């Protein structure tokens, strides 16, 4: 398994070729626009030419696949014959998949709210304190670790050894210290789903804190000063000044984490592979399509996920627009 740079050279060469290729594309575009025949100089033609490469990538990588997924969701496992709504009916009646929907519901119920609340709470608490930057850096640290990495860490925190043996998992170690029996945490439904959600919160609270901290700092000093002169208590200050000021940002953060949570895949795949009743829509979609070769069911789950995400994105865009208008 040695690493030799020479082996990697062909790949790097491809990268260089790729870069050159795309610089050439841009250059050609610009030349075509500037030096082409007179017809090409009309405004809309130039604009279209500039837009074309991005649009092609978008159509090939997003638009066409979305349409095809939707079509596949009405077809059988091989994508060969139409089956109407069968996949969707199966989705809402098969007990295993109902568990998947329940789990996704649990994720969305707990993950975003807790991550955002902890982030807000923390941002408020360290705001303008001497140790602010150190505390923030620490809370932010999990953000630097990928979901896969974070899941691996937590998998070992939940690890189990029989009671006689020395515990290697932190959670069981603590339980043993308090005189309890070690448990196979990741095998117990539905606690195991909650334990997986902890990993999401662990990572996303840092994100929420960083964004909300910036929003708190953006509250004008005059408002804070005025409140101080009025002598408002900490709770009145929080309810009447801080919360309304950061509300739009809070909503954007909450929605963003909700979308992330709906799509959660890496954590489940890494920690349990969806076994022991921990599967969620995104994981089940992967399993159906790429493990059980059931393209129809996989597509139906994907479409359902998409439908769940759309209203959140619309809400997010609206909140963002309001946020921008307020800033103006």
């Amino acid at each position: 398994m040695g690493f030799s740079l020479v082996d990697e050279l062909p790949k790097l060469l491809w990268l260089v070729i790729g870069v050159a290729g795309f610089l050439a594309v841009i250059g050609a575009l610009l030349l075509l626009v500037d030096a082409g025949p007179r017809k090409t100089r009309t405004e809309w033609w130039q604009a279209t030419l500039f837009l074309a490469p991005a649009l092609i990538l978008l159509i090939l990588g997003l638009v066409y696949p979305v349409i095809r997924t939707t079509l596949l969701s009405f077809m059988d496992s091989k994508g060969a014959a139409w089956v109407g709504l069968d996949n969707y009916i199966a989705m809402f009646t098969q007990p295993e998949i109902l568990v998947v929907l329940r789990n996704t519901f649990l994720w969305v119920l707990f993950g975003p709210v807790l991550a955002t609340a902890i982030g807000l709470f923390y941002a408020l608490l360290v705001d303008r304190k001497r140790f602010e930057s150190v505390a923030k850096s620490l809370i932010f640290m999990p953000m630097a670790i990928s979901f896969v990495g974070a899941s691996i860490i937590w998998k070992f925190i939940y690890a189990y050894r029989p009671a006689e043996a020395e515990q290697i998992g932190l959670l069981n170690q603590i339980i043993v210290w308090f005189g309890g029996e070690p448990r196979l945490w990741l095998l117990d439904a539905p606690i195991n789903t909650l334990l997986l959600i902890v990993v999401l919160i662990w990572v996303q609270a840092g994100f929420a804190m960083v964004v909300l901290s910036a929003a708190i700092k953006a509250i004008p000093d005059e408002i804070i000063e005025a409140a101080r002169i009025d002598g408002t208590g900490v709770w009145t200050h929080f309810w009447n000044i801080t919360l309304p000021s950061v509300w739009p940002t809070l909503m954007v953060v909450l929605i963003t984490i909700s979308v992330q949570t709906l799509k959660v895949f890496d954590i489940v795949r890494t920690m349990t592979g969806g076994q022991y009743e921990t599967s969620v829509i995104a994981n089940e979609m992967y399993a159906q399509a790429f493990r059980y070769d059931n393209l129809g069911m996989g597509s139906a789950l994907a479409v359902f996920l998409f439908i769940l995400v759309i209203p959140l994105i619309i809400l997010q865009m609206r909140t963002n627009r309001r946020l921008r208008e307020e800033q103006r």
Partner: protein
Amino acid sequence: MSTITARPAGEQAESVTPARSAKRSAARAGSRRVSRPAYGAGIGAAIWLVLVVVPLYFLIATSLRGSGDYLSAGPLSIPEEITLDAYRRAFEVGFLKFLTNSLIVAFGAIILVLAVALPAAFAIVRSKSRVVRIGFTLFLLGLAVPAQAVIIPIYLLITRLHLYDSLTAVILPTAAFALPVSIVVLTSSLRDVPSSLYEAMSLDGASNFQIFWNLVLPLSRSGVVTVTIFVGLNAWNNFLFPLVLTQSMDTRVLPLGLWEFQTQYGTDVPGLMAAVVLSALPVLALYLFGRRQLLSGLAAGIGK
């Protein structure tokens, strides 16, 4: 014996700082006439700080242990002797190869996105034509699409193109996927350029090429940095695309490498933790040296 004495010491080291900081925060808050509830809040914050710090301590301490030490000593004990053996093992199972592959995918996706998104954003800002407006709406719609909704057809398409199990197979969808957010970010950073500047340059007889090179590129620099980091982070941490679109050791990227490491060498926990630490180092370095840029890249996803 030494592990038993070491354990409480380790525990203490973890808990002293938050407790003290909570007290200090309460004291400081007190001077701002917000004493009582802040005290309770301080305790809550201290608990979360412990929840964040203890797994990080576990990660780093374990990565510095010998493999025998890991099994015999408790998870929180201070390693008896600090060794970089685990890191050496991480490199032995191909970590450098995963790292190279991840870097190639990240840079490939960044270059591809910038190459197509910059001209597109330029067109969107400059042009009022219908085609462009429809195109922009299409990009906005793209913001809503989850990776799961495209992965099956992309898999079928990539296999059809005989690209399966290549890095290109990962780069293309990663780039396509980051495109909508990138276009939105670049468009809004170009919108901040006063349109009089464009007009002045066109009146002076500058070609589009000159406008693009001398005006658009320099002025959109902050947008370009944001997009670079956004695309880079997405490529760096992406798991689904490489999982579905690659297979062999030769094309394995970091998250997939970690995952495979975990399933194959699950007993070598220190080695695994060392690999996790190494995979997070580039992002941490970014946090230390370019915090503002990193945060703008992270926030790009939320459309601010």
